[in-house]
Each structure stands twice: as C-alpha cells, then as structure tokens.
C-alpha cells in the first residue's frame, strides 16, 4: 500500500522540482531584465 502512495508522491515531487527550477530561472531572468532597464536609463 505504501508503494502506491510513494509512487504518487514521487510523481508530484518530480514535477514540482522541475517547475521550481523553471520558476527560479524566471526570477533570475527578471532580475537581469531589471538590471538592463536600469542601465538603459
């Protein structure tokens, strides 16, 4: 029974991990854009 819940849990852990890395890259990118904008002014 544990195997079933573990399987479902790990599935979501894998997906969420990927989404977290994507959003981390997003925030880093947004910071870079801010830097660019500030320098352009």
């Amino acid at each position, binding site marked *: *029974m544990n*195997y*079933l819940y*573990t*399987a*479902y849990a*790990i*599935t979501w852990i*894998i*997906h969420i991990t*990927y*989404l977290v890395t*994507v959003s981390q*890259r*997003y925030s880093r*990118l947004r910071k*870079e*854009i801010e830097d*660019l904008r500030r*320098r352009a002014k």
Partner: protein
Amino acid sequence: MKKAFPILAVITAGLLSYALYEALVVAPTEQTMGDVQRIFYYHVPSAWTAFLLFFINFVASVWYLIRRDTTADILALVTAEVGVVFCTVVLVTGPLWARPVWGIWWTWDVRLTSTLVLWLIYVSYILLRRFSTSGQTPVLAAALAVFGALDVPLVYFSIWFFRTQHPQPVIGGGGSIDPRMLHVLLINWLAFMCFAVLVCWSRYRLERLQRDVDETMALEDLLDPRSSVR
C-alpha cells in the same frame, strides 16, 4: 493569449484532482494485484505523454533542419526537457509497481527497458544542448533528435527479441482491460496532457525571454564594449 494560461491552469488543477479521486477511490480494485495496481493510472498516462512529447520533438527537429525556424527549435528543446521529466516518472513508478507485485525492482521488460533507453537518448540530447559551445547548437541537436527517433523502432525490436529469448515478467500485464479502469486511465491521461501543455508553455516562455535577453546583452556588448554586462 495571456488570459488563456490561468484559465488552463485552473482547468488542469481541477482535472488532476478529479483524476486522482477517480484513480484512488472510484476505480475498481484489481483482483490479483490489489490496490498497488492503481499506480497504473499514473504510470501509463505519463508514458503516453512522454512518447507524445518526444514525437513532437522529432517533428520540430525535422522542421528546424528544413526551415531553420526558431520557434521549432525552442519547441524541440521544451518538449525534450518536459518529456524527460515525464519519462523519469515512468521509470520511477514502474519499479515501485514491480517490487510489491513481483518482488523485484527491475526487469528487462520490453516497455520499461525501451523507456529507459529513450530516457538515456533524450538526456544525452539535453546534455549536448547544454554543453555545446557551437553557434549552431540547434542544428546539431536537431540532427541528434533525428538519430534518436530513427533508433526508437530498432530499440524496441531488439529488446523485444531479447525478451523472447530471456522471458521476464511483464509490467502492466497484457490482455483486455476493464472498461471502468479504461475510463479512469483516460481521464488521468487527459489531465496529465493538460498539465504537460501548461509546463511546456511556461518553459517556452522562459526560453523565448532568455533568448531575447541574450540577444539584447550581445547587442549591448557590440555597441558599447566598455560597459560590464555580466
């Protein structure tokens, strides 16, 4: 276009929750394997989604080789990454299903082994993209994707024949499926497909933005090399 994303997100969340409920509560319990069999409702849709994503990668790669269209290139990259994520899920849930049912973590079952090889091929694709310093990385990656796609039937046949020589338990079982189980399976597949679209969409937007920023920085470097960009 912008509005569509949050709407799709809400729909997907709803579908996934509903699908989960169906898988855990509504679907009938399997006779021989018991409740562990419910892993099937996550394992199989993930596999189908991964294969579909890899197929889109192949089409996008060929399109890129012919037309050199950036959209095709980004689509190829995105589908490869998300495909690997789903493929990882397949490779993890498979053994978790096999262990309680057959007592072994791994078996050289045709589908699981083919999936492993597919995973290896696309991980190597992602690594090529990441480590290549050539200006024409998209072309190289597209060529590799074509090779990978050509390899898939060969992989499947070779492992299939290998298995007929060395029989092993089959994960997932053959034979017909109870229509109620099929219904739950399809709902889960639909939910995961919507989820895949969402993830691909986000990753696509990220990549577009990244490339625009890179271009801007490159231009800045060109116009004014004195300013320290990074």
